[in-house]
């Protein structure tokens, strides 16, 4: 009898979902760039949504398969990393065409859609290997400013777009925190009630052996309640969510640097350009140091 095939064992280029995704990306790219189909704004936006969802689905599928097989491959060697970059690049290119002058809503949509696959990548990779979260963040840091820059140009519109993105992130953070806080609070209440109930158990009745058994059971119940595994799982979800939200905020900060650089370049202010370039280099060196510290 042959050995069962583990989902993560086969390389990505031997899997059907990889080719289906490539097909979706190429089809979406052709549709979005107006090569095929009607060259309308709605068609472009639909193509972008489809591409974003396809990459997100592929990333989550591969991550689940790898998590089951215990993969610990570095993030930059995975197919989902490169496909995420590719899709974000495609959307950046499409974003340039999609956004007419002054089209704030379309620009924001393009920016948010550009963020979706990298964000999915970051969260999903975090499930396979915690250290890869930094690399996922790096993808976000590289990709979002490009998307925003492409959508908004280098003028004051860029600041408006950053404002909108930051506002959307804040709203998402607040809503997510509220839901997760409630869920975790319910778990904490359950564990507290279980601990109190275990502590209140009376082990003084019956023979000595029965009392000993009762005490052992009570101790085990108290330990289980105070360890509260469901609460730990809930906190892990909260931390993953917050990591993604902080990642989004870091992107906004990084985009600020890029927009400032663009503004300085447009004003031909050499001193300001050099200051911004120094900031970019400093940010890059911090990221590289963090990667080395985490052994990526």
């Amino acid at each position: 009898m042959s050995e069962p095939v583990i989902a993560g064992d086969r390389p990505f280029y031997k899997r059907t979902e990889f080719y289906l995704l490539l097909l979706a990306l190429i089809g979406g790219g052709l549709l979005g760039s107006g090569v095929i189909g009607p060259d309308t704004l709605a068609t472009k936006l639909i193509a972008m949504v489809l591409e974003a969802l396809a990459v997100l689905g592929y990333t989550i599928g591969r991550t689940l398969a790898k998590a089951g097989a215990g993969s610990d491959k570095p993030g930059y060697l995975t197919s989902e990393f490169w496909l995420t970059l590719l899709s974000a690049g495609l959307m950046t290119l499409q974003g340039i065409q999609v956004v007419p002058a002054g089209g704030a809503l379309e620009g924001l949509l393009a920016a948010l859609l550009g963020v979706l696959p990298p964000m999915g990548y970051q969260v999903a990779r975090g499930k396979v290997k915690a250290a890869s979260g930094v690399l996922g963040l790096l993808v976000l840091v590289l990709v979002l400013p490009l998307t925003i820059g492409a959508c908004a140009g280098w003028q004051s519109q860029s600041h408006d777009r950053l404002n909108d993105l930051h506002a959307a992130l804040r709203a998402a953070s607040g809503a997510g925190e509220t839901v997760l806080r409630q869920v975790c609070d319910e778990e904490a209440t359950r564990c507290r009630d279980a601990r109190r109930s275990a502590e209140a158990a009376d082990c003084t009745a019956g023979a000595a052996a029965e009392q000993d058994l009762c005490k052992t059971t009570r101790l085990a119940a108290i330990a289980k309640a105070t360890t509260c595994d469901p609460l730990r799982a809930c906190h892990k979800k909260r931390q993953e969510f917050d990591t993604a939200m902080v990642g989004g905020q870091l992107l906004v900060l990084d985009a600020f640097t890029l927009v400032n650089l663009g503004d300085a370049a447009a004003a031909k202010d050499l001193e300001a350009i050099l200051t911004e370039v120094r900031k970019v280099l400093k940010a890059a060196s911090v990221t590289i140091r963090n990667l080395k510290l985490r052994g990526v």
Partner: protein
Amino acid sequence: MEALLEKLLSLVFKYGLLAFDALKTFLAARTGKLTEAEVEAEIERIQRQESEDIAADWQKVNS
């Protein structure tokens, strides 16, 4: 059936309020010009809020 309807209504109410709050936050945060200091403050807030909430949960378990 009645219980299901009640549950459904409470869910709609709960998430409707949440969506309304999120919209209010979005609109409030859009006004004015965003600064880098505000973004840094938001990062700090997320991290501080997470630590506070987690600490409060464990305190509750042991209370």
